[in-house]
C-alpha cells in the first residue's frame, strides 16, 4: 500500500516551502488531518491557523495573493468547496488570484465520519467556476508533482486529496503534465477513464477484462479542468466505448466532463462508475467503496455493459 495523497501533500508542501519563500499556508483547525502541520512545524512564521472559519480562510488567502504571496489553503473538501464556495468564486476566482486550495478528505473514503463529511460534489462545484483549475492526483507521486506545478502556475487551483492510503500507481520516472491524460494501458475494445483513487481499480479492471477477451485502454485524467479533450476524442475514435470511474457523484464530475467532451467531438456509448446521486454513510473506506459500487468488479461490469452497447 502506498501513502494517502494528503500525506504526500504535507511532505511536498514542506519541501516546496524551503525553495519558495512566498508560500504561506493557512488551515482551519484541521492541520493535523490535512497534514499542513508538517509545513507549520518547519515554517511557523508562514503558517496561520484561522480557526474554524472557512469563509475567512478563503478571503484571507485572496488578500495574501493580492499582495503577492502564494497562499496554500487546506481544509476538508466539504468545507473548502461547499462551505466556502462563494468566497472561492467571488474573492478568489473572479479576480483570478493566485490561491492554491488543497482540499483533503474528499469522497466516500473519509469513512467513519459519514455523509456530512464526505464531499462527493466538490469536483462539480469547483470545475464550474471560471478561472479555476481542478486537479485530482491518483497517488503520492502525482500529488507531489501536481503541487509543484500548482505553485509555479499563476492562478487559482483546486487540488483534491484523500484521507485513505492508496496504492502507488506511478514510479520515480513519472512526469506530471498539466492538462494531459496519462495512458496506463493500451486496448482496442473500450477506454476506461479514471481519476484519483479510482485509477488503481481501473487498471486492475483492464487486467481482468483480458480474461473475457476484452482489451481496454486506461486513461488517468488528473486534470479535470481543463480536460484533455484530444485524448478523450481519440479514445472514442480508436476504441468506440468509454467508461468513467470516480469517487464522486456521477453528476458533474469526471463522468460529466468526459460526456461533455464526447458529445461535442465523437459520441460513443458511455457508462459512468461513481456515486449514484445519493449520500454516503459511516463505514470503513473499503466497505463504502463496495456498497456504493466503486470496486474493480463494478468497473468490469460497466465495461461489459458499454461494449454490449457498441454496434
Amino acid at each position, binding site marked *: 500500500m502506498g501513502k494517502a495523497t494528503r500525506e504526500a501533500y504535507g511532505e511536498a508542501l514542506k519541501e516546496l516551502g524551503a525553495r519558495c519563500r512566498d508560500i504561506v499556508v493557512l488551515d482551519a483547525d484541521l492541520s493535523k488531518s490535512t497534514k499542513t502541520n508538517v509545513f507549520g512545524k518547519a515554517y511557523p512564521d508562514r503558517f496561520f491557523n484561522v480557526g474554524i472559519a472557512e*469563509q*475567512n480562510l478563503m478571503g484571507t488567502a485572496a488578500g495574501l495573493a493580492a*499582495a503577492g504571496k502564494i497562499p496554500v489553503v487546506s481544509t476538508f473538501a466539504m468545507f473548502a468547496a461547499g462551505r466556502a464556495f462563494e468566497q472561492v468564486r467571488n474573492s478568489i476566482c473572479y479576480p483570478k488570484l493566485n490561491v492554491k486550495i488543497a482540499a483533503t478528505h474528499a469522497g466516500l473514503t473519509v469513512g467513519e465520519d459519514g455523509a456530512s463529511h464526505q464531499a462527493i460534489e466538490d469536483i462539480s462545484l469547483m470545475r464550474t467556476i471560471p478561472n479555476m483549475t481542478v486537479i485530482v492526483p491518483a497517488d503520492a507521486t502525482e500529488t507531489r508533482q501536481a503541487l509543484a506545478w500548482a505553485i509555479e502556475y499563476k492562478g487559482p487551483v483546486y487540488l483534491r486529496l484523500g484521507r485513505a492510503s492508496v496504492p502507488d500507481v506511478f514510479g520515480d520516472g513519472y512526469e506530471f503534465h498539466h492538462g494531459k491524460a496519462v495512458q496506463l494501458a493500451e486496448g482496442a475494445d473500450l477506454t476506461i477513464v479514471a481519476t484519483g483513487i479510482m485509477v488503481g481499480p481501473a487498471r486492475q479492471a483492464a487486467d481482468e477484462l483480458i480474461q473475457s477477451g476484452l482489451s481496454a485502454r486506461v486513461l488517468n485524467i488528473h486534470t479535470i479542468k481543463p480536460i484533455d479533450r484530444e485524448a478523450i476524442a481519440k479514445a472514442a475514435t480508436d476504441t468506440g466505448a468509454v467508461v468513467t470511474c470516480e469517487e464522486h457523484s456521477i453528476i458533474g464530475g469526471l463522468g460529466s466532463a468526459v460526456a461533455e467532451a464526447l458529445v461535442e467531438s465523437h459520441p460513443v456509448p458511455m457508462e459512468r462508475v461513481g456515486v449514484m446521486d445519493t449520500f454516503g454513510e459511516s463505514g470503513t473506506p473499503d466497505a463504502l467503496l463496495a456498497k456504493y459500487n466503486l470496486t474493480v468488479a463494478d468497473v468490469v461490469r460497466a465495461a461489459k455493459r458499454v461494449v454490449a452497447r457498441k454496434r
Partner: protein
Amino acid sequence: MAEKLTSEKVAELGRRAKSVRRNIVSMVTAAKSGHPGGSLSAADILVTLYFAVMKVDPNAPADPERDRFVLSKGHAAPVLYATLAEKGFLPQEELVTLRKIDSRLQGHPDMKGIPGVDMSTGSLGQGLSAANGMALAGRLDGRPYRVYALLGDGELEEGQVWEAAMFAAHYKLDNLTAFVDYNGLQIDGPVSEVMSPLPIPEKWRAFGWNVIEIDGHDYNAIYDAVQAAKTVKGQPTMIVARTVKGKGVSGMENIADWHGKAPTQEECNLFLSELCD
C-alpha cells in the same frame, strides 16, 4: 501632538467631496441603476483617505509599497470610481460608462480591470478577510504599507465579518484600519429593525479591536482617527463613522429607498444644483 489637517486641506477635501458626489449622482443616473445612498454616505471618508492619508500614486497603481483600500461594501462602487477619477487613476469622462456593456466600471468593483482597485468586492462580508490577508502579507514582507477597509453597517449582519474580526485581533494586525459606514439604513429599512447589528462599537471592542467613534462627515475627525490608529500597537482599529445615507443631497438623505435606485434625469438635475461649488 499628532499632525492635524490644515484649514486649506479641509477646504480642498470639501471641494473634492462635492465633485465626487456630483459624479456619483451623474454616473448612477446615466447607468439607470446603482447605489447612490451608500456611496454618498461614504464620500467624505474616501476623499479623506485618498487625498490626506493614503500613499498611492496613479502613475504606479501596482506599487508593492502602496497603501491598500478594500471597499467591502462593494455596491458603493460609484464612490470608489469617482474618488479614483478625482485622484487621476481614471479619466473623469469614463465614469458615465458605469454598468454599461464593455465598460471597466462594473456594477461592483473588479480589480482586474481598473488601476487603483485593490480588491474585487460586491458580495457582502468578504472584504475584511481580504484586507486581513493584505495586512498579513505586508507584515511578512516587512513592508510598512497600511491597509484600509470600509464596511457597511448592514454588512455586519454577514457572519464572515466576525470570522475576519477575530482573525485580525488574534494576529494583532495593527497595520489594518477599517471603517463602518454607520448610516443606519439597509435595503429593507433601518438596520435596527431588519436585523440589528447594534451596538456596533461594543461588538468590535469585544472582538479585540481598538474602536474610535466619529462623525463620518467631519474631515478633521476622520483624519485624526486614522492618525490615532497608526499609533496603536498590537491591535487593528475600527473607526465607527456615524454617517447620513444620501449625504449632501437633501432629497436623498436618510431615505432607505435611495439605497439601490437611480435618479431620473429631472431628479438628477435638481440634485446636481445642490452640489454646485
